[in-house]
């Protein structure tokens, strides 16, 4: 019964983790049944452009599809779209969809991702009356894009990646944009150095960044605008409020299944769910056991989602079990600058920032190390430098060695004193 080589594979969640799992299953040689279930009615699409080119209007819905071809194309698997999975029975090995249909499986891959947190609705008012948007789903993002095109004032609540990107896109479209971050400094999660560089980048491009700005509530104004009240009594008015205050995993539908849930679906180091034969979890919803840190971790990044998809597909088809041990990597595009990060930093890591002078322009890099080894690197507008750090990180590189290799790509690698840089001044302003 179980399944070194499962005959029927069911994938729930039709975004990048689910789609890449299905594609990799076929590429690895799965010839049995394969069904991909998704709650949204749209053909599977990619999320990162929603805060970038799609929001800016430079890429349309067809340009961000994850599967080639339109609705009629043969993708090599069955698509069940527009119907959410509502329950899982691990004993009988079946999943119930919202319309009551029961789908059996030999192997089940959970890829239901996360959804954005929202601000609490004002008492007695439906939140739909407010011009508040999150950035995760195509329909809502399309509505938001149409609204931003009017160039009216925008307040972005939350200074994470998605909020920061949405703010950058809004500002580039000509909307007077304010980014309200509740923490003591903007972008603090990335550390003071990168936070300062990013704050400066936003200030340079006309985004007003407010730190220590905790939103108390949002109220409707008569003209369709919103009044955003901060805890410290300040009030801001805007035509549009974009809410980027983090996400919660889509696991409610699994609550009756008996699976281990803890801010995500808890898995072992292979992304397999302990105690539930044939069940796996990939992507933003998966909290997998990370051997490297000795704890369970959940990340919300594209590359990790696709790497887990490839790993699980391989395990299902070939029976080969490899622990998920990624080189942590993410990118973000803000104000035309590509920010890339490799590895994981800790607050007490040693930090060095540099300006890299290259034949094609100046770039910036921040390197983190501990006991002489590279722990993380963040590059601004320097994909090649990031790639070098990424390859080095994977080999557990010595920080002096990485620095030398980066210097080799440049005509000069000059230490950057962030305490006196214009970026930090931008941050303080």
């Amino acid at each position, binding site marked *: 019964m179980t399944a070194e080589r499962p005959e029927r594979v069911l994938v729930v969640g039709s975004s990048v983790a689910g789609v890449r799992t299905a594609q990799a299953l076929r*590429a690895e040689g799965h010839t049995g049944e394969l069904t991909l279930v998704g709650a949204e009615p749209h053909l599977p699409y990619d999320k990162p452009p929603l805060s970038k080119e799609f929001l800016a209007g430079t890429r349309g819905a067809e340009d961000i599809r994850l599967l080639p071809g339109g609705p009629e194309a043969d993708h090599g698997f069955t698509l069940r779209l527009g119907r959410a999975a509502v329950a899982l029975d691990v004993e009988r090995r079946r999943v119930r969809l919202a319309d009551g249909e029961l789908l059996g499986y030999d192997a089940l891959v959970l890829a239901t991702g996360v959804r954005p947190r929202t601000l609490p609705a004002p008492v007695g008012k439906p939140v739909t009356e407010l011009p508040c948007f999150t950035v995760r789903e195509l329909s809502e993002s399309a509505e938001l894009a149409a609204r931003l095109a009017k160039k009216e004032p925008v307040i972005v609540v939350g200074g994470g990646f998605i909020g920061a990107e949405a703010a950058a896109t809004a500002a580039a479209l000509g909307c007077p944009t304010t980014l309200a971050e509740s923490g003591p400094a903007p972008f603090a999660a990335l550390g003071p150095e990168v936070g300062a560089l990013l704050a400066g980048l936003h200030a340079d491009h006309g985004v007003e960044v407010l730190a220590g700005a905790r939103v108390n509530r949002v109220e409707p104004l008569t003209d369709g605008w919103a009044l955003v009240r901060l805890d410290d009594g300040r009030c801001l008015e805007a035509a549009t409020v974009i809410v980027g205050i983090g996400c919660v995993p889509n696991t409610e539908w699994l609550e009756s299944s008996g699976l281990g849930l803890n801010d995500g679906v808890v898995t072992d180091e292979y992304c397999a769910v302990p105690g539930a034969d044939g069940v796996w979890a990939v992507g933003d919803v998966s909290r997998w056991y990370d051997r490297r840190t000795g704890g369970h971790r959940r990340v919300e990044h594209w*590359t990790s989602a696709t790497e887990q998809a*490839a790993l699980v597909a391989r395990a299902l088809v070939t029976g080969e079990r490899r622990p998920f041990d990624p080189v942590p990597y993410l990118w973000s595009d803000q104000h035309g600058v590509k920010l890339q990060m490799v590895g994981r930093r800790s607050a007490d890591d040693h930090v060095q920032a540099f300006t890299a002078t*290259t034949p094609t322009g100046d770039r910036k890099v921040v390197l983190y190390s501990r006991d002489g080894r590279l722990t993380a690197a963040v590059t601004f*507008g320097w*994909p*090649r430098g*990031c*790639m070098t750090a*990424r390859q080095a990180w994977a080999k557990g590189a010595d920080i002096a060695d990485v620095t030398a290799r980066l210097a080799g790509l440049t005509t000069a690698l000059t230490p950057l004193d962030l305490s006196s840089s214009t970026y930090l001044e931008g941050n303080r302003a």
Partner: protein
Amino acid sequence: MHIGLDLGKCQGYGNCVAADEAHFDLDDSGLVVLLDDKVSEADRERVAAAVRSCPADALWLVENDG
């Protein structure tokens, strides 16, 4: 078999290089460089995985070189 590339779509994310250093690299301006656009049967799955890892949809495999 060889690798198809739309350089206009490449964003320099570098996932292809991370997946397969034998076929892909990045240049100074952060765009992908094909070190070898020919793909042998033995390399097929690795290159296919590199192609799937591209977030920008800039890469594909061309099956028939005829």
